[in-house]
């Protein structure tokens, strides 16, 4: 997912408020970094089209709010990176500590645990002999 700097800032803003219209967002950001109302409206529209904001028409203006919480959004980003990782078999920017695959079933995981225990007991017995 490609997000511009202003889009990230606006998204961060919506995680701190329950909802706002374009004028309120513009008022908040004009104090911090300037910019026109039109730019803010375009940014809100882009975020809405990316399904990161939801909106509801109240009177003549749209009232926007975050589509997902910050935690859920980060989860989505991690998933999108790891989804690339699995759909092409490898995502080359990412080297995961463990893959998110669920291919190994409980039985196989138990077998692996048994292998580790076996290794531990073998190491212990070798240590005691020495």
């Amino acid at each position, binding site marked *: 997912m*490609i997000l511009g700097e202003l889009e990230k800032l606006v998204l961060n803003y919506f995680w701190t408020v329950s909802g706002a219209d374009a004028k309120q967002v513009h008022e908040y950001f004009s104090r911090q970094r300037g910019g026109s109302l039109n730019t803010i409206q375009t940014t809100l529209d882009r975020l809405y089209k990316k399904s990161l904001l939801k909106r509801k028409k109240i009177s003549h203006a749209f009232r926007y709010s975050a589509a997902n919480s*910050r935690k859920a959004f*980060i989860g989505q980003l991690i*998933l999108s990176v790891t989804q690339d990782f699995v759909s092409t078999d490898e995502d080359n920017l990412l080297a995961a*500590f463990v893959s*998110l695959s669920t291919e190994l079933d409980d039985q196989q995981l138990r077998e*692996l645990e048994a292998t580790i225990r076996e290794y531990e007991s073998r*190491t212990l017995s070798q240590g005691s002999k020495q």
Partner: protein
Amino acid sequence: MITGILGFMLNALSIIVMSAVTIIALISLAFYCRAIHIHRLSAESRQTGLWILVFSPWLIGVLSSTMVMLLSTPEISNFVGNQFVHWHHPTQFAVDSWHGYFVSLILGLALLVALRACFRVARSSSTIRTLSSLSSPRPDGVRILDTNTSAAFTAGIKDPGCYMTSALLDQISAEEYSIIRLHEMAHIKRNDPVKKTLFHLLTTFFPTPLALSFNRTMTTAMEQSADAAVVSKHHDKATIAKTLLKVRRLAAQETADQFRLPQICHYGLDNIDQRIRYLLADKKGGEIPILPVVAFIGLLAICCALGTDTIHHAVEISLYHS
């Protein structure tokens, strides 16, 4: 008709491309016939072997092209008395000939592959930049992501970073955290994200099933090498294996219960089994015999150089008769 230096370069390029395609076909055939047993090698040797496999078509192409073009120049040909290798028109390249079409087709495909790879890199980089901006860096270099997903990974080409989620952090001990951090830092130190990108790019010229297999083998070998880096600092293999299994269990549970994405189950690269068994094994596999491999590459380059003229004549005769 293109003549002079540019014509010479294009002829050289067409030999490189012909040789590379031939070698890719030979490697693919060797793998399908199970004549290459790369899995018997140690993790480091497997990586070296895979790099040789994906680089060799282009290396052999350059070597054979150099041989053919050098021996086709009158000065060297007269001096050496060349009778076996020659290219009739080293400085003349006809664009509307089979050479021209062949080189254009392969270069077009290569450009397409490169553009696709660049697009994917740009898209992933943007996601990683966003993740980075949402993370909280710790003094030890790990970037914490506040989310309910358990994950730890290394990502980024220009500025690779080690990411760990708060959900994972809440469920692991200080020792487990240290193991995961050492593993991810080993990826950063070894430049694995960059290497994987380059490797992936080179494998795109191979048939898809083979390319997938190469990438999977390379990832497993990289993970095993990162695990070995942890062993060199932590020493207790059983604890490292237990940590791997624990993180694997946490991730699997969330993937199944929370995200419900079946495609991950089907396509996911699952190398935990191989990693744990390799980690605990006393014998790590053989080393790659570098000298015989180098000699074999040289032999293949000579064969390609000798075969170029034959293929050239065979194609031209078949085109002339048809």
